[in-house]
C-alpha cells in the first residue's frame, strides 16, 4: 500500500488554511487541501488513511472515488517536490 510523507520545508507560512512553502530555493503556494495533506503526513501515512482524514476535514469529493481523488492530489504535491510517495 502506498504511503505519503511531507518533505521538510526550509520555512512555511500559513494563512486561512493555505500556505507558502519554501523548499529547495522555491516558494510555492499550496491550497488548503494540499496544506492539510502536508500537515497530515508529517509521519508517513497510508493513502487510505490519508483519504479518510481528508474526508473528515473536507467532506467527500464532489465527483470520483475518494481514494483516487486523494491519490491525484497527493501526486501533484509529489510532482511539486513537497511530498514523498513511499512503498510503490
Amino acid at each position, binding site marked *: 500500500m502506498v504511503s505519503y510523507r511531507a518533505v521538510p520545508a*526550509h*520555512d512555511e*507560512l500559513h*494563512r486561512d488554511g493555505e500556505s507558502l512553502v519554501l523548499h529547495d*530555493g522555491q*516558494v510555492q503556494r499550496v491550497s488548503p487541501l494540499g496544506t492539510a495533506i502536508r500537515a497530515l503526513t508529517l509521519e508517513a501515512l497510508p493513502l487510505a488513511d490519508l483519504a479518510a482524514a481528508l474526508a473528515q476535514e473536507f467532506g467527500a469529493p464532489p465527483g470520483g472515488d475518494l481514494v483516487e481523488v486523494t491519490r491525484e492530489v497527493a501526486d501533484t504535491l509529489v510532482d511539486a517536490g513537497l511530498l514523498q510517495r513511499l512503498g510503490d
Partner: protein
Amino acid sequence: MSTSVVAPVVTPVVAPVVPLHVLGTDVDIRVGGADPEPLASTLRTRWHLCLRDTDAPATEEPPAVVEAALRHVDAPDLPGPTPPARFSTVVTDADERRLLQRVTQAVTYAAIGARSGELLMLHAAALAHPGTGATAAFVAPGNTGKTTLCRTHGPGRAYVTDETVGVRRDGTVTPYPKPLSTRRADWLGVKDEQAPGDLGLRGPAVQPWLAGIVLLRRDGTRTGPAEVEELDLLDAVLAITPESSAFMTTEAPLQWLSDVLGRTGGALRVTYSEVSELADLVEEICGRASPW
C-alpha cells in the same frame, strides 16, 4: 680613497584602497593597474556616501574585498597579493564606465554575501524621512524605475539605496547609498555610476527603519493616476520573495517577511506610468510613525 655603496631603495607598491561601509558591513575596493590613483579618486567620489572612517573600523570582521583595475591592452595589470578576506572579487576592464558599473555589481555581491543570513535583503529602492528615519522601500526588478524614483523623490529626503534594502530583525535598515546606476540611451547599455551628491541626494543622518513596502509595476502605456492595491499576506510574500537575496540562508525567512509586513501595514502594489505619480505615496510612507 673610500667607496660607499648605497643600496637601491625599493618602495613597495601599495594599491590604493577605497574603504566602504555598506549594508552594515565593510568592503574594501583595492585599486590596481598601471595607474591606480585616478581610478581610486573616481571611486571615492562616486561612493562618497559609503566611505568608511578607517580610523574607526565599523565592524569586527575583516572587510570583504573587491579588487578593481583599469586594464590596458598591453599591460593587463592586476592588484598585487592581498591579505585574507571573507570575500574577494577581481574586476578588470579596459572601459572605465563599464568597470565602474562592474565594481558596483561586485561591491553589491560582496556585501550581500557578507550579510547573508543576517539581514532580510530586498531588491528595492528606499528613501527615508530625514528627521525620523521612516523608510519607504520600493521593491522592483532591475530597470523598472528604482533609480529614477530616487533621483526624483530623493532630494529633501535621506537616500538609503537604489539597489538593496537590508532589514534587521528590529526593523532598522542598513543603508546602502551607492552610486546611482543610470542607464544611458546608447548602444552599449552600460550604466553611468553617478555620485548621489551630484543629484542632490544625501545619506541618512538618523537611523532608518522600515515604515512600508511597495511593489513597483511600471506600465508606460497607462494613463491617469497611479493605481494602488493592497496585497493579501500570501500574495505579498509570494511577490516579494523573487526580489530577495540570500533568502534560503536566512532563518525562517517567510515568517520574518510576514512579521515585517504585519508591522508595516502590509504590502502595496502600485502600477504607474511616470515616477512623479508616486509622490503622495512616498510622502505618506515617510510620514508614518514607527511600528517597531
